[in-house]
């Protein structure tokens, strides 16, 4: 009886059956990280409190081998033809009206949306975050039911400083390791954003969240719906990630 009790206590104290944060983060990373080039159509619907909805459409091309991506705005009319090109460390914004390229920072807003340049970068989750621990040094992971889906709920904290949020809570589906919900906190522990990953599609053996909702918890009434469609994983031409291509396409 004593042995059973000790085993039970051990199980409780070590969180038997609960995966580690690193393991879950790696699983998430493996689920999402595309080895191929990718192109897709991205649609952002922004709803701001007291204002109508704003629809932003763009074409997105990404090549991981040299950390490049190209974004071409296709809507709204005021943004149509504008673009963003990143090749290695260089990040340019192209303005159709003036036909000029301008160097911009990673935190530049894309097409007047709340999305920033670094949101389109591919950075390893495990390089950015690690599991947060409670006062007893135990990782903050628990089992929960989200809707009707069994999930792992885990708290993670930033390992580096150049991330938007230093603290996040993930709800990861137990059956397939997909992220279903995420809450992001400021360094003063204020809830800033809740994200829901509503629908995934499988492309080349990897999962792509094709329907996401980002709710601004700080400024109530603001939310952004992100939809990804037309995903193609065939190899992209080198010429695509060049200034002349963006310039010609925008004409």
């Amino acid at each position: 009886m004593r042995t059973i009790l000790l085993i039970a206590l051990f199980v409780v104290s070590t969180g038997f059956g609960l995966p580690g944060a690193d393991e879950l983060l790696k699983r998430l990373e493996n689920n999402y990280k595309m080895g191929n080039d990718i192109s897709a159509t991205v649609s952002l619907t922004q709803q701001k409190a007291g204002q109508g909805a704003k629809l932003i459409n763009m074409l997105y091309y990404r090549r991981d081998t040299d950390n490049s991506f190209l974004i071409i705005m296709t809507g709204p009319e005021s943004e149509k033809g504008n673009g963003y090109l990143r090749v290695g460390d260089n990040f340019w914004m192209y303005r159709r009206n003036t036909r000029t390229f301008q160097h911009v920072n990673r935190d530049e807003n894309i097409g007047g949306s709340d999305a920033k340049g670094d949101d389109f970068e591919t950075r390893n989750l495990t390089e950015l975050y690690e599991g947060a621990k409670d006062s007893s040094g135990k990782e903050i992971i628990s089992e929960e039911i989200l809707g009707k889906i069994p999930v792992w709920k885990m708290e993670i904290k930033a390992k580096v400083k150049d991330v938007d949020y230093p603290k996040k809570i993930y709800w990861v589906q137990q059956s397939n390791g997909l992220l279903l919900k995420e809450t992001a906190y400021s360094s003063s522990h204020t809830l800033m954003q809740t994200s829901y990953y509503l629908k995934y599609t499988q492309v080349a053996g990897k999962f792509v969240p094709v329907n996401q909702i980002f709710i601004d918890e700080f400024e109530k009434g603001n939310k952004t719906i992100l939809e990804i469609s037309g995903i193609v994983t065939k190899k992209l031409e080198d010429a695509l990630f060049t200034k002349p291509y963006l310039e010609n396409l925008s004409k």
Partner: protein
Amino acid sequence: MKSVILNISLRNLLRQKRRSLLLGIAIAFGAMILVLSNAFANGLSDILFNKVMKFVTGHVSVTFSEKGNMFTQVFRDGDRIMTVLKEHMPPHSAYSEAIGVFCRGIGNGKADNVILVGIDFNAQTTPEELEEAKQNFKMIGGGDFTDLKDTTIENPVLLSKEKAKYLNLKKGDLMRIRVTDINGQYQAARLNVVGIFEPANIFMSTPIFVELSRVKKILGYGPHEIAGVNITLKNPTRDAIPLADTLFNHLKPDLAVISGSVKGRGKLQIFGYRSDTTFLKRLKPLLGQLTGDTAAAFRSNGAVLSKSAATGLGISIGDTVRVSYSPKYNPSPVSVRFVVSALYSMADAALPQEALLVNESRFYDVFYMNWPAAPIAEESALLPKKGSCADSLLAPEWVLLDRCKNTDEVKKRYKEIGKLKWKAVTVDAQTMYETGSDILKLESALKLITLWAVMILFFIILIGVINTLRMTIRERTREIGTLRSIGMQKKDVRNSFILETGLLSLFASLIGTLLAFLAMHLLSLFYFDVSDNPMGILLNNGHLHFLPTAAGIVGYNLLILAIAVITAFFPARRAANLPPAAALRHYE
């Protein structure tokens, strides 16, 4: 004789009262407009320079931006900057730390963009400056701007009545802000409204004011990190530019180096190499024979170790080298890791022989995260000499921006900061005369336009003066003949006419000046509520602001006098040249 001429001139002036009066009114009006417009242009300049820019940028400012991002205003070794400042500040000058960041403010059911500004209560302020600051914060509904210092309240904030109205806030309410901190992370904070003020000018409407140390805490500044420094001077026109030049000369960076050690193996110096294409083209040949993954060595996290250091420390290509070093502001040593992608070996000593060269992107992340202590003497001896080839290819502690001459150069340079993608912090010493040279241009343009407008007005008035003099001479031709017959010299006749015009102009312009002062007083009594109107730039506390200067008044009065005398000279000379007999024969 001189008194006789003066008497004749005065008598003649009073003889034609109506004519003199009308002419005097015209001259006085011109003088009034000239003095008034000059005072207005000076007032505008005074508002922009001394009531706006002085508080926004100081007379001289030292500003910083990290990684080419204008909004990341931070310098991680603030004590060093402050030491340089204190050593070179002229007497009767003061400095304060300056922070201003854009953020999202949430009030009661309303949200708006605001600028969060830190008020440095530790700044050395004179009683006059304190009074001036109070004038800028005319509180509505009681309170004082020093309420920001209240330590019993969480983040006290002052905001303008316009901002308070828009955000639906009143004194005692709570507002929230969302801001990006110096690390690029979103931060949220609660602010308590301790006062609402009437903005002194349009530029005071948007910012919200919080005590500096609280702003620094919200934005994640460490105890030795500063955002920027504003310096105010007693005589800015004389001292600002020389001070900025002096600071520029004393803020030149040294080579950035992390002098550390690999545990149990030996010492190692870490340098950043400049990663722009032009620098890499020059650097690669100097590295001699490169072995290992050369492509990886020049990526943003690339690191190249000298072959001799690798041998000495027992490190191979692909190994992770863990270097610990003493930070300047932290008693405990810190350790950093780099993956050695390649080894370099050189025939000559163009680059340090016992060193790890790291791409500046990664190097500056480490360097700024924990600013290293200065190398000891024996380590300093190993550093590349100033001006050497290595010195130009390796990363400096920061990038000191060249001094600018005017606003256009300032704008051009800020564009280049983004374009050149500096990984280092940029340091910029500038004066408000450079950043605000457009204001000086505006003031000069305003004065020039006014001068030309008034000159045209005077041209019309002077046609009247000439015409009046011609009529006077015609009327007094026989009198001139009589005066000449009884012995008055030609020049005396001429001078009497010139003096007559001169006296008229002098009295008229003096009266015009007095009228200008009266007009200034009356116009500045009006209150204009144009808080949301760009015209608010012309106002100080809702009133028109005039700043007459003694030099301006004397100068313009002399100008009017000179023009009047020159105009009168030719008809007066013609009158003086009339033969006495012919003049006496004259009859109308």
